[in-house]
């Protein structure tokens, strides 16, 4: 599973980071950045992060 993030859409809510902190973080501007891969077992949290994002800035790309 791969993730893609869209900084232009991001409003910095931080829900992705709260939900899957190994994968998502906030950069110095407060916008989303990918911190690491989705590890086995982490798929549900990554999907939840996509679902919770209020601005549609997080996308799961199934591999």
């Amino acid at each position, binding site marked *: 599973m791969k993730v893609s993030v869209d900084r232009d859409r991001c*409003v*910095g*809510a*931080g*829900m992705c*980071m*709260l*939900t899957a902190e190994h994968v998502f973080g*906030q950069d*110095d*501007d*407060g*916008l989303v950045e990918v911190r690491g891969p989705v590890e086995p077992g982490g798929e549900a949290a990554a999907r*939840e992060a996509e*679902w*919770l994002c*209020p*601005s*549609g800035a997080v996308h799961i790309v199934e591999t």
Partner: protein
Amino acid sequence: MADSPAASAAEKAKHDLNFPLTRSGCPFDPPPEYQDLRVQRPVARAVLPDGQPVWLVTRHADVRAVLTDPNISGDLRQPGMPVPGGGNRSPAGVPYPRTDPPDHSFWRRMLLPAFTVRRAREMRGRIQEIVDGTLDAMERLPQPVDLVEAFALPIPSLVICDILGVPYVDHPFFQAQARVMMDRNSTPEDLQNTVATVRGYMCELFERKRAQPADDLLTKMVQAQEEHDLGDEDLAKVAQSVLNAGHETTANMIALSTLVLLDNPTTLAQLRAGRATWADAVEELLRYLGIGDLVSPRTATADVPVGGAVIRAGDGLFALTGSANRDPAAFPDPDTFDIDRGGRRHVAFGYGIHQCLGQNIARIELEVVFESLFRRFPDLRLDVPMDDLPYKNDSAIFGVRALPVRW
């Protein structure tokens, strides 16, 4: 049988759903009408006190859809934008949260670094100091003590002062102004005077921050003035927005949540014993209380199909987050307060691009507040029956006006 247009209108008005609705029965529950609306009329027509028609969106999925639809505007200046109080579109001009992109995006991005998850976590120690200091002062008061006045109101304003960079010595002045803003007995003239006073004070602070930059939001804002064509008035309005957004909401959550916890002693005992986390409790309190129910008015800028209805271009609507938070389609057994529920699917902080900027500060603030309050006063109890408390039924943000307690 109606035989005149006036009689027809009057007849129709009798059947229109009047909005806002009020809580009745348990103060923790949203208006009872929401349940039927979700089931039978998930997108329902209602009418405001001034006669303006509005749509009420009550289901969790529909609330999320509406708040992310590109044809739904949050701009206060849109002609169809519902304003429950009527007329007054804010004496202070349009606050940035009530604008659309690109204005909204510009300000949000400027403020955002002060409100990140990391920044909120870094503030935990400072918030703990504020809470401890407030508890110290409270402990010296003769009982019964009003928890709203002594605890719930001052803490959020002190935290915001910290974020903005208001000097500690000015806190009493700043808090006094904030109180006037929230007081329902304040006249429109009182409010205008207070807004002008705070604005003037902010402009003085901007001067000080230019002379002596600090690691705070007001300094960041004056530094942004150099890059962009911004006046002091623009900055002051935004600083005011931050204060407005984070004060009454958080204060009301502190007071009401205390009631919920006192009303759920088994849950409270688990939390105090460390068998459940305050983070989980806060998330469920946010869902359960749904105090920001009325905070998401919007206008359609094109026809938007939702929930089996069509919201026409120019129509106003409310995305009722308090209703969404009790939608059984999203939360099994939704009217039960259950801190083991898990997840963060509630929309207490709203949804879409306007989702609360301060939410991560609020989360940590609330965790620290309750952990500290119940650790300091293990025998905290209400001094009057819960049913006798004065609830804010006529306020945009639900809460309680006074909360006499003993310990």
